[in-house]
């Protein structure tokens, strides 16, 4: 790391490896004293080439590949992929499967928001909140494990439905867990809204106005904290959200505190929705059959991931592999805003502002590192080749 000190600028690098970043990403902040005057971002350190790799795998295999776009919001990616493929095949998952998908998606949102709360508290130097919120996150992870069979990468979906059913015993254990989580969430709402020391680090920090949020294309809770009405579950309801409606959480302040409030209130709303789904789970089949070859066509779906709107575009050419698959994750939209927001703030606020959008770099870095021309017969050969070159499609960046 060479030293660039001139009379005006002093550049502080953050990343690719930095304690504030749980994943590799590179930020450069030029500071004047403690004030940030310029910010620059470079991505690609967790780039695994998923979009290209998806073109050389069949429709079923892609489901699991895409689930690994992100380790935290893994379900929403396979959810989006399934919706798009089902749209291409002109089938619809049975109502019970749709409800279970939404159930897992909301549990995942709880998991993600709790995780985020802990991480941001840690960035702020409030480790007690970090430890407690992660302790409570275990509850929802246990629920997910008991329901789907895994703590992350739930693999709940198959093309045309879901893998498992929710029986009364599981419903009861979910309800029990939710009661605890609801109590804790209400408590954290108090902590985040009242703790004077914590508010010093969040109130009025990183303010993004509504106009800014719209121009910079912010999505998800980041946008909603600036009073921008963007929530796919409400504005463009998909799957079981058509039956089970959810309220949009908005805040007009646009600062970090608002982002905390929006997310924690979303937790309460998710808990309410999960209870509602459990009470009114439709009866019926769990999956429908999908052909191995998906009819040619194009499909674009937009879903609300915990971090915001996720966009999937799939083009099929009628074979058993997709022709093109495009993933646009929420972080890439929100990253724009963070870069601009950081300027003018104290260096100490930068990790908080960064964490405020809940960045997920492995979500962003998907497209290409290396691809393979592969057909079925050479499967093992090319796989070992891939391994040799060390692309870790599966051992992707932790998280």
């Amino acid at each position, binding site marked *: 790391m060479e030293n660039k000190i001139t009379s005006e600028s002093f550049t502080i690098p953050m990343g690719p490896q930095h304690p504030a970043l749980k994943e590799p990403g590179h930020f450069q902040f030029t500071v004047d004293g403690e004030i940030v005057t310029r910010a620059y971002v470079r991505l690609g350190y967790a780039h695994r080439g998923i979009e290209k790799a998806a073109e050389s795998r069949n429709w079923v295999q892609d489901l699991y590949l895409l689930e690994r776009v992100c380790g935290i919001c893994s379900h929403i990616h396979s959810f989006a992929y399934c919706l798009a493929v089902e749209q291409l095949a002109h089938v619809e998952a049975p109502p019970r499967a749709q409800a279970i998908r939404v159930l897992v998606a909301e549990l995942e949102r709880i998991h993600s928001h709790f995780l985020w709360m802990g991480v941001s508290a840690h960035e702020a130097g409030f480790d007690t909140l970090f430890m407690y919120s992660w302790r409570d996150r275990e509850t929802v992870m246990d629920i997910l494990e008991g329901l789907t*069979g895994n703590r992350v990468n739930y693999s709940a979906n198959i093309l045309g439905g879901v893998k498992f059913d929710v029986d009364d015993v599981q419903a009861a254990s979910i309800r029990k867990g939710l009661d605890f989580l609801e109590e804790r969430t209400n408590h954290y709402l108090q902590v985040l809204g009242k703790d004077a020391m914590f508010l010093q680090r969040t109130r009025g920090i990183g303010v993004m106005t509504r106009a800014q949020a719209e121009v910079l294309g912010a999505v998800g809770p980041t946008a909603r904290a600036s009073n921008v009405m963007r929530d796919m579950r409400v504005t463009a309801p998909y799957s079981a959200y058509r039956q089970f409606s959810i309220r949009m959480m908005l805040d007009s302040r646009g600062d970090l505190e608002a982002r905390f409030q929006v997310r924690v209130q979303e937790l309460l709303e998710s808990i309410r929705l999960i209870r509602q789904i459990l009470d009114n789970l439709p009866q019926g089949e769990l999956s429908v059959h999908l052909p191995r070859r998906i009819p040619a066509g194009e499909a674009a779906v937009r879903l609300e991931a915990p971090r915001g709107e996720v966009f999937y575009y799939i083009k099929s050419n009628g074979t058993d592999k997709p022709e093109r698959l495009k993933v646009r994750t929420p972080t890439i939209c929100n990253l724009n805003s963070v870069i601009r927001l950081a300027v003018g703030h104290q260096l100490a606020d930068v990790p908080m502002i960064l964490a405020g959008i809940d960045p997920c770099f492995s979500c962003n870095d998907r497209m290409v590192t290396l691809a393979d021309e592969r057909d079925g017969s050479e499967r093992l050969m090319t796989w070992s080749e891939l391994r040799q070159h060390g692309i870790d499609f599966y051992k992707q960046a932790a998280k």
Partner: protein
Amino acid sequence: MKTFGVMLPDVSKSLFRRAATEYYPSIRKATPVQLRGLLHLKLEACTGCGLCAMDCPANAIQVTMLDRKAKIFTVDYHVDRCTFCGQCVESCRQGALHMSSTEWELAALDKTPFLMRIGDTRNAGTNVAAKPENKPAEDKHN
């Protein structure tokens, strides 16, 4: 209303509470029945169709047909590649596959337990240790 030390109740309760951290190697929590652990194959039900291998996202399953008429085949299960997604169990039309919910501590010091060869091993012609009993080398559950 701003106050100081809002987390005081949590902190003070913790003094008299057992740590939430798991004491993992000494105390093992029971795993849920749904857990997707090690894959098991019922050889008598398997027809060697290879659907599981075709759908496996990690190419962890390899079906080699040795004699199509006599239905002699071997199934190689690469435990180290397996992502435990459970798609093979869904894909199998014979119901020959299931995943154990108790066998999940699969780490080993060498690679031998990671290749499990199920089926006819007479003509396989490799020197990989065959594991017909379908289990990793060490049983860590004792």
